[in-house]
């Protein structure tokens, strides 16, 4: 495993899940908001199918990020936590990404699942 691939795996692992959730958060908000607004309603987007699709894509990216972090973690397993330079840092961020991506995956799943329940547009 060349050092460049390890670096790529580690940085994708660290940032992949977060960006996937952030995108799903903003785009999902836009979709469901347009479903409830006059200006948006004339596009009549199939809100729930789009949300679930968005959730699946974002979830896939988060799982890919988790796997990348796991591979980087395995590759640097022999390295001690306080090891110097790239190896120690990659091992460190890989462990961190394992936790982060789990969290992002759960939020992504909850966002996608929430469209299953038919919630009203207007608070009452």
């Amino acid at each position, binding site marked *: 495993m060349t050092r460049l691939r390890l670096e790529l795996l580690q940085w994708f692992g660290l940032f992949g899940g977060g960006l996937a959730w952030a995108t799903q958060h903003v785009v999902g908000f836009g979709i469901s*908001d347009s479903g409830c607004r006059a*200006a*948006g309603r004339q596009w009549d987007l199939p809100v729930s199918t789009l949300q679930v699709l968005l959730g699946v894509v974002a979830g896939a990216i988060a799982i890919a990020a988790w796997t990348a972090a796991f591979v980087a973690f395995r590759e640097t397993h022999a390295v001690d936590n306080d090891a110097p330079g790239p190896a120690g840092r990659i091992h460190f961020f890989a462990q961190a990404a394992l936790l982060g991506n789990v969290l992002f995956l759960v939020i992504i799943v909850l966002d996608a699942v929430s469209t299953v329940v038919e919630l009203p547009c207007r608070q009452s």
Partner: protein
Amino acid sequence: MTAATLPVRHARAKGWWGMAVFVATEATLFGTLVGTYIYLRFHNTHWPPARLPKPPVLTPSLLTAALVATSIPMFVASRAVGAGRREVAWRALTVAFAVQVFYLVWQLHDYVDAIHRYPPQESAWASVYVTLLGAAHAHVLVGVLLNAWFLVRIWSRLTRYRAVGVQATAFYWHAVNVITLVVLVVQLSPHL
């Protein structure tokens, strides 16, 4: 082992990183302004209001194209100061500076005209439009002042400190050009 003989690995100077973080704040500020434009767009049926003339297309596009083109001489200047070639850097900066001043003067003239054509006191669209353009021009003005400063400084002597300054200014200009492009798209969005 004195400072001169330390094992040195090439990396970005702290001045460049300072500019990078500053650019992040300004980009977030423009993200907020553009977000406000889009947010209010979905809160109004007529955006911009029907009675207002549509924003101009040709002049802003050409001017923005000219400004974005200045990224090339700025890149050349940044590369030249890195390699210690002072004259090349100075000439590249002068070219960029000229185009930028030309852009700024023309845009400020159009801006004063825009404030009369789209009075912000009468509609939210005009308020956001005028504020967004004003912020963009302000950042171009800051870039012009930075360029002027380094034109004067590297005319006499090129030190590492000033080289980092020119590289940071070049990075600032790349960012401002991207922001100006985004502002242009938002400005022309009523035509889309």
